[in-house]
């Protein structure tokens, strides 16, 4: 198997890996989320390098713009009031390390052995092509996906909505914890 040097990849890959490592090791959750943003951006760059600009765009928009923001919001909302940052766990980290590395080694070895090398990249799919497939071949999946998103939204709303009178009473009595979204009704 030939291993050709590729400058773009050589820059992007370390960024992705290192930032990913920071995501999982950062003590400060906000930092971790920001590192995730870095990883995702790196991934977007990789997509671009892999001739998938559309994906790169989507990645930046939804992930970096959406998910990371959401996460930061989540962290902010749930951070304790004394402001102490969460620490990365060290308990059981050996086991985690062992199995994670086992997974990595296993996968790498298999990849290496299977050697799925196709030297000449195929022609890229255009956005138009994508759209056509999406609304024909994948139509039903697409419909189902919309249902899925609807369900997720309904679910998320139901979960965080605070309407239950009992809980409200408890909250008023001070037995539950003070929250940002005090009482809805």
């Amino acid at each position, binding site marked *: 198997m030939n291993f050709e040097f590729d400058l773009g990849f050589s820059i992007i890959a370390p960024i992705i890996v290192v930032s990913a490592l920071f995501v999982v090791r950062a003590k400060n959750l906000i930092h971790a989320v920001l590192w995730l943003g870095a990883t995702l951006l790196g991934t977007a760059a990789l997509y671009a390098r892999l001739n998938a600009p559309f994906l790169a765009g989507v990645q930046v928009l939804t992930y970096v713009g959406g998910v990371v923001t959401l996460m930061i919001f989540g962290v902010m909302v749930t951070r304790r009031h004394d402001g102490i940052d969460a620490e990365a766990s060290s308990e059981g980290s050996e086991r985690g390390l062992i199995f994670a590395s086992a997974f990595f080694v*296993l*996968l790498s070895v*298999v*990849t290496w*052995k*299977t050697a*799925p090398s196709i030297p000449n990249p195929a022609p890229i799919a255009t956005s138009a092509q994508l759209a056509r497939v999406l609304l*024909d*071949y*994948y*139509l*039903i*999946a697409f419909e*189902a*996906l919309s*249902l*899925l998103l*609807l*369900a*997720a939204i*309904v*679910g*998320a709303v*139901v*979960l965080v*909505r605070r*309407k*239950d*009178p*009992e*809980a409200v009473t*408890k909250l008023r009595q001070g037995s*539950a914890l003070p929250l940002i979204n005090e009482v809805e009704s």
Partner: protein
Amino acid sequence: MNAWLQVFSLDFAVAGAAILILALDAMGGISGRVLGWFTAALLGAVLVASFFFDPSGSVPHGVYVAGAWVLFFKRVFLVAGILAVLGSLDWLSERTPRRQAEYYALMLFSLTGMMVVPGARDWVLLLVAFELMGIPLYVLAAWAKTDGPADEPKVGPEAGMKLFVTGAASSAFTLFGLALVIGETGSTALSALPAQATMLTHVGMMMVIAGMGFKLGAVPFHMWVPDTYQGAPTPFVAFLSVAPKAGGLAALTVVTLSGWGTQQTFWAPAIAVIAAASMVVGNIFALPQTDVRRLLGFSGVAQIGYVLVALGAGSQEGVAMALFFIATYVFTNLGAFLVVHAAAQSSGGHETAKLAGLSRRSPWLGASLLVFLLSLAGIPFVVGFWAKLFVFMAAWRAGLGGLVVLGLVVAVFGLFYYLSVARSTFMSEGTAQEPIRAGLALKLSIAVCLAAVVGLGLWPKPLVDEANRAASAFMQRH
């Protein structure tokens, strides 16, 4: 477009019902209880329709194939849905009166996902349907939030969280595995799989199986099961413990036999290992449980092990027997959970000890629970016996004698804990004497389960024939 409508008519109906329920609720003025009955009625209507309207056929590109196989599963899901809705009705209107419509809607969303799964022959559709089935469950599992009696640990969020984290991890693995598979085969069609199988494909497929295994609650992806069963509302657990299992089974069967059928030597050992581990772990871990829900959770893990034994046979017969098993399992396990739910409502806890005197307080409930437990244990003349027997026979014919023997041995452990529950219900005298109060819907649901378990136990032939037909349809169309 017509073909699509026809093939997906039932699924559209259920999805429409979900949206309809949400809309009705948004309009306001309709009590949640009525909505519940309405939901059950809608599902019932769809179920009835399934007997008069044949949705067989396939859509362009073969993304989806409908036939006896799909119909069998759809009916199973619908039945589970109806029973679960009826079982939840009273609890919901009493405990979470302000968010009943969402509950039904989410359950219907999940049902929609399930109903699409068995027919999907394309990875994308399969994945989306699978997730559509799964995501509402995360929400429903955490439904209890902070409600519930004061003395009960409020493990609702925890139940959801555990389900979610293991589920998300499994989804990630599924995605990663699928990426490898699709990448290697170059197509999202399941049928492309066997032709292009490389070692990376196999690795990817193993990850996909892991994802399905999570939904089935098979070892070692079962860790969420007892905790979630304990924390989630029991009527919902009744649903969770059967319908998604059937969905997972459908997905796994489609993936292995339809997609990967010719590569049996690759996946069969994996299934066998999971089956063996599930039977052993489920049965052993159930032994020390004192909470009936946890106990039934582990028992469910073991039951899934039995189903996987049939699937591991990899034959048409095996598939048929797995279908029979899972269909009867719906009635048995759902019924068991609902009885436990009814009893716990009155006695204030789900511990085995709290069931003491149940048969004195409400003989019918006690007898029903006994029947369900015996069925789970695989005792003759209730349907569980046939289910287990058929599964083992199929496996035996396929040369999985070792698994059969193992299954029989650990089944004895199973008997021990099932009987422990029976001992509480029948032999111990509880302090309370007044009858268990259970709403009409709940009673109706339990009665249907009981009738099915006993009836099919006495005369299993119709369902066996149906399962055989479904399996043969599946195996021939692939």
